[in-house]
């Protein structure tokens, strides 16, 4: 009886873990989301990419704002190496009107985002990834015909001050992937704004 209990809890734990979204190593399903320029963006549109820097992002969150310039730098540095940034706004735009599609267009123009800034309008993509907050990064790498998660978490270890960063988690993870190694750490954490849903 006790054994059954343990088995059941183990199964429940496994289910709970799956429900949380992709883990490192998991195969990533493509998406098709509307970009600020009106086009639709999928990872399949980038056949030459070695992977993607998927950043769940938005307009209103101060932690995102603190990272916008670094997101631009990341794209400029790593897109030519085959790792473009795709920023996805996962927030419900009625729950958080500041993250509306029209405000996304304004923000993308103001900052001159060189990467796609797309909206998860039906809120179906972020739960698959298991994104919980903005900014929340998923580094995806090409693995034969598949795309797999290589790293989950923060861009670096200092949201407030880019010049005081000690560990560039994401950049280090990309370097590791480029060397054919597994990123270490493969998961990091940072404070962020919870993803907004309609109640």
């Amino acid at each position, binding site marked *: 009886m006790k054994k059954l209990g343990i088995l059941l809890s183990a199964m429940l734990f496994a289910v709970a873990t799956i429900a949380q979204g992709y883990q490192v190593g998991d195969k990533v399903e493509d998406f098709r989301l509307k970009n600020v320029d009106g086009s639709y963006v999928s990872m399949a549109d980038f056949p030459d990419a070695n992977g993607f820097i998927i950043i769940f992002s938005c307009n209103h*969150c*101060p932690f995102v704002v603190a990272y916008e310039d670094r997101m631009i730098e990341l794209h400029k540095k790593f897109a030519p190496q085959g790792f473009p940034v795709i920023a996805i706004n996962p927030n419900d735009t009625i729950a*958080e009107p500041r993250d509306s599609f029209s405000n996304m267009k304004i923000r993308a123009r103001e900052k001159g985002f060189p990467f796609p800034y797309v909206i998860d309008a039906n809120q179906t993509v972020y739960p698959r990834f298991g994104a*919980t*907050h903005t900014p*929340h990064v998923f580094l995806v790498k090409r693995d034969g015909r598949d795309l797999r998660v290589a790293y989950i*978490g*923060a861009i670096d*270890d*200092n*949201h*407030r*001050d880019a010049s*005081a960063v000690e*560990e560039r*988690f994401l950049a280090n993870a990309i370097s590791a992937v480029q060397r054919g190694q597994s990123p270490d*750490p493969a998961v*990091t*954490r*940072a*404070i*962020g*704004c*919870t*993803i*907004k849903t309609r109640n």
Partner: protein
Amino acid sequence: MKKKLSILTFFTVLFIYHVVHASKSDQLKVYNFEEFEHWLHKETDSIYVINFWATWCAPCVKEIPYFEKLYENYKDQKVKVLFVSLDFPAQIESRVIPFIERMNMQAQVILLDDTRANRWIPRVDEEWTGAIPATLVYNSSYRKFYQREFDYEELKEIITPLLN
């Protein structure tokens, strides 16, 4: 005489300004994680409700009155409510303290100023991804971390069985 009076007035005003200013800063203590961590492991017979929030976090702001109500209704029953602000320290005077005053927050508020979140987030709870609002509830026999929003009834449901 007039000159002396004006000098006196000047210093009185200066004095009052300093007193008011000092008390304002006293309202919000700022800690790094090492200084804060003991709050997560108090070994007393109280129930600790520790809420991580920020003024810019809309769902956090929404639930503050429920935590305040919890504090108000249970402060005589050994329930300690602590608000841990994750606001930017540069905005303490301009934003955080005015917010605390406007909301008339009575439970204790501190500000956690520690950028190395990847190091300290798992020390609050292994399950925490970093999204706020987030709340830790614990006493000597119970410990649970909630990465979610609450209303008052939900908070009460958690606290009630711990009171006996």
